[in-house]
């Protein structure tokens, strides 16, 4: 076994080196992005974990096929960095790494790769933002070749969390996306996040087409998830659930989509705190004991401008042919730290400063564990200085733009150096970082109008591209207690009417379902498109008010899905290995990339009765005064007289006749 592996690894290294040679003959890949030939490829550092990927059992023919393919897609490069003088020659480096892989495989007692069909990857991306904040994005991916939907099959869970596996099989889930976010992502200051999420909790689920009662399954699923994540997801009911007709297409593989099996809900009020993070961390194979997850101290993570944790389950391609699928669980955690203000104006950060911990090891169960630092704006090191220096550099196409990253491979012991700990430190040289490019797409929303009866929702969508128009799909969910006047809906851009090419509107039903408005709008280049719609505020029944009604009522974020023109060509091959942060949204065309952004949630005041005690006391005393004092006053001031009993009808008629006849009247 050992010998076989060694042979395999060496052979693999050879193949890789060959691949590199071929590539180097073609282009000299530097850190310069403008090198046209390398633009359309995701060049990233070749990690030799390929060797663990390739099980030793399959026949050699398969192997060659696979490697031939790998050779095509990987384009593995080990870019030489000028910063490091004593970088070893490439061939040696490769061999070293290969040896190292061998070491890890021998020392850690993994089960044989043929039986374990699951793997786990972890990575942390750190991006210094132009505003001076630091964006840290954790991604953990567990992949498992299993079939949850065969309910009678006995499954032994290894890396995949059992609680989620059971949820998938019980409710026949096809895809599940859940996010908990505290704070609002400021696109204009921070650029685009790797994975967008709205403030509060968001849940959208695609069910398998075998589910007969989708609403029931959805209801039970939200209850179960509320238990798993300690969140109030059980507040998701028919009044805030919608079934979008065009948005939220499945992110995983699958050839059929019927929007009947989609459910989407947002709870904008949901608070996110340690109690949500605790169960989220428990789903990781290493928990918070080892690997990147040791950095997740809630006291630090929540002391931030933005905190978002998410979980995505979807089927993905098992191999490059994509004939069969495996399940992917992706756990992401995005934080923006405002170190500029807390650091007494010094622009300097380190892992220890951010998380009050340093890294000492990779998660032993992880097949890859990496830390990426974005150094795109700093090619020659004039802006900031990164220490310890790393020889590994990776390039990836993220959100339509080519980025360069310094990579720290935690599975390599050399990364930790003499101190056996890794504390990435970034010291700024320049006082100001350069101007940030304006994000191409940006959305805003607010409520206009005064008083407590009517109002107007304004949604602004910015297209900052100088010469290209692109389509966006806007999805608005408005609760029933804001009655939309849909005839007042206007869409204008550049002062002219912009007729949406597709409108789907589902009116609300009181206490049953919310408004759903979906519009496909073409955004002209360099423009602001404004969508306005008027509404009336409904009166609630007094038990329907929340305990703090004067706080106001939330309306969830609008969702803007767009196909944005990309600066560099996107990689349409969705099956190949890429860094996790650049491989979430599948890409179909080279010239555009898919992006989803969320606007601010709205806080709307509804006409609220005064529930306070003084008010009730006043009401009560007024009643007592009116009834008690009023009747007494009445008694005292009124004069009473004895009323003459009135005559009967018959007698009166008789008297009229008697008067006519001239005879005496009856008394």
């Amino acid at each position: 076994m050992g010998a076989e592996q060694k042979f395999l690894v060496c052979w693999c290294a050879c193949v890789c080196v060959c691949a590199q040679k071929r590539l180097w003959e073609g282009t000299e890949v530097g850190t310069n992005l403008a090198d046209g030939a390398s633009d359309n490829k995701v060049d990233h550092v070749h990690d030799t974990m390929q060797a663990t990927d390739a099980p030793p059992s399959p026949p050699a023919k398969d192997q060659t096929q696979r490697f031939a393919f790998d050779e095509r897609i990987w384009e593995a490069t080990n870019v030489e960095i000028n910063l490091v003088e004593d970088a070893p020659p490439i061939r040696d480096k490769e061999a070293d790494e290969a040896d190292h892989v061998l070491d890890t495989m021998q020392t850690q007692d993994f089960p044989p790769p043929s039986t374990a069909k699951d793997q786990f990857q972890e990575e942390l991306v750190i991006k210094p933002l132009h505003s001076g904040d630091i964006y840290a994005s954790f991604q953990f991916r567990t992949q498992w070749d299993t079939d949850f939907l065969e309910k009678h099959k006995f499954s032994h869970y290894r890396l995949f969390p059992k609680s989620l596996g059971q949820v998938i099989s019980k409710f026949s889930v096809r895809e599940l996306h859940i996010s908990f976010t505290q704070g609002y992502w400021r696109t204009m200051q921070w650029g685009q996040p790797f994975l967008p999420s709205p403030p509060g909790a968001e849940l959208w689920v695609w069910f398998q087409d075998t589910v007969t009662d989708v609403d029931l399954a959805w209801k039970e699923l939200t209850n179960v998830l509320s238990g798993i994540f300690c969140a109030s997801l059980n507040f998701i009911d028919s009044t805030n659930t919608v079934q979008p007709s065009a948005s939220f297409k499945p992110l995983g593989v699958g050839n059929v989509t019927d929007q009947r099996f989609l459910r989407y809900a947002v709870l904008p009020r949901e608070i996110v705190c340690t109690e949500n993070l605790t169960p989220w961390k428990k789903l990781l194979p290493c928990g918070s004991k080892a690997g990147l997850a040791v950095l997740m101290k809630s006291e630090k993570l929540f002391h931030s401008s933005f905190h978002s944790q998410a979980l995505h389950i979807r089927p993905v391609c098992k191999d490059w042919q994509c004939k069969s699928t495996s399940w992917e669980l992706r756990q992401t955690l995005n934080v923006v730290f405002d170190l500029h203000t807390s650091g007494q104006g010094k622009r300097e950060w380190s892992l220890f400063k951010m998380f009050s911990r340093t890294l000492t090891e990779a998660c032993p169960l992880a097949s890859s564990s990496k830390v990426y630092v974005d150094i795109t704006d700093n090619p020659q090191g004039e802006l900031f200085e990164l220490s310890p220096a790393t020889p590994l550099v990776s390039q990836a196409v993220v959100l339509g733009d080519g980025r360069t990253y310094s990579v720290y491979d935690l599975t390599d012991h050399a990364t930790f150096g003499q101190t056996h700990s890794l504390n990435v430190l970034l010291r700024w040289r320049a006082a100001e970082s350069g101007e940030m490019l304006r994000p191409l797409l940006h959305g805003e929303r607010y409520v206009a109008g005064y008083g407590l009866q009517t109002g107007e929702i304004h949604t602004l969508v910015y297209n900052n591209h100088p010469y290209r128009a692109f389509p966006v799909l806007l999805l608005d969910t408005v609760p029933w207690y804001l009655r939309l006047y849909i005839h007042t809906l206007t869409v204008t851009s550049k002062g002219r009417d912009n007729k949406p090419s597709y409108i789907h509107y589902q009116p609300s039903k009181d206490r049953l379902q919310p408004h759903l408005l979906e519009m496909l709008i073409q955004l002209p280049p360099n423009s602001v498109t404004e969508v306005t719609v008027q509404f009336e505020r409904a009166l609630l029944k007094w038990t329907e008010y929340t305990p703090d009604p004067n706080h106001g009522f939330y309306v969830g974020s609008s969702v803007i899905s767009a196909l944005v023109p990309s600066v560099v060509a996107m990689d349409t091959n969705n099956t190949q290995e890429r860094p996790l942060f650049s491989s979430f949204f599948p890409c179909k065309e080279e010239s555009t990339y898919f992006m989803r952004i969320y606007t601010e949630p709205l806080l709307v005041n509804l006409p609220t009765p005064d529930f306070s005690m003084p008010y009730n006391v006043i009401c009560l005393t007024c009643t007592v005064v009116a009834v008690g004092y009023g009747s007494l006053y009445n008694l005292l001031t009124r004069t009473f007289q004895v009323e003459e009993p009135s005559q009967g009808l018959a007698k009166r008629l008789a008297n009229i006749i008697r008067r006519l006849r001239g005879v005496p009247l009856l008394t």
Partner: protein
Amino acid sequence: MGTAGVSASCINMASCSSLKILTLLSLFLSPTIVETNNIEAKAGQFFSSGHTNNWAVLVCTSRFWFNYRHVANTLSVYRSVKRLGIPDSHIVLMLADDMACNHRNPKPATVFSHKNMELNVYGDDVEVDYRGYEVTVENFLRVLTGRLPPSTPRSKRLLSDDRSNILIYLTGHGGNGFLKFQDSEEISNVELADAFEQMWTKRRYNELLFIIDTCQGASMYERFYSPNIMALASSQVGEDSLSHQPDLAIGVHLMDRYTFYLLEFLEDIHPSSTTNMKDLFKVCPKSQCVSTPGHRTDLFLRDPGSVLITDFFGSVRKVEITTDTINLTAPMVHLEDTRPVRELRTEIQTYMDQLPVAEIIHQKPKQKDWHPPDGFILGLWTLILLVFFKTYGIKHLKHIF
């Protein structure tokens, strides 16, 4: 005997105390039978307290930032019971507001019980089961009586049985005979007493310890009538419960007096402590509390002096050790996967187009109501016209129009 108890406590911390008590008792009663019935006595004392599992329902009923102290109260009890061994799955924690991640909290993700940020009772692995708007009188009573919707997850249920010792801790703003929930509704002492009676008839508890920290707290347990309930309150009827530990950095009072001293008392308890309920009654005398803490034991059948603190605040498992070898003769039969493997899908799967513009534009609006097919309607009209002309002919047309 004492040494035996200590050595036993190496394996099982808690049995030590009950062992001592029982052996003492047996010494008094029948000193001669001790040796002969030693094993039976040992076996019997495992169940001397009568419970096999522990549960805790901890409720903070107050909303808004200035009620920080009520959340800290509840969390400090949570911290203690968790430290003494009740797992999160056996604790139903209800917090009416989020103080830890409140925007006014200068130190997010913390809730402090002591001044100068000394003790963070929120911890790093808290699990809150009911929070925010979920904390209502209805939900509280449903948790107690177990009448929850069928899809409620286990973590939100009180799955106790007739061998469970339950600790119920309430804190919030109250008055004579009621406790307010979220400033918008209240639970009365009669409702609470009836809920406990329902729990008793449903055999949902073995013994119940009720603690309440609120103004006029003693009024809340006056109406209890179900057996095996011991109750404590922070103040008598007509008294206010007072706050403690004002903190300048956080800007509010951190704790209430009674729970503050209760926490100090509980911090000294460890799983093998022999401290009993009599000691708990002495917590926070009037000199410290300003109010007079009250207790009620007439419904409780055991002597409070023999009831350990850990009977309610901890989950102490009784472990019996055997030296005999046990053979597991029937190993698990590995089930072979005999069912046919599903044939490999031949078609190539692809990722979906995330924004299929052309497809969206040409999406047909769905016909909601059923409509008869056009051909049918056309045929019907033809038939009607045919019958008309057959009957009247063309010449009668002028009579109609």
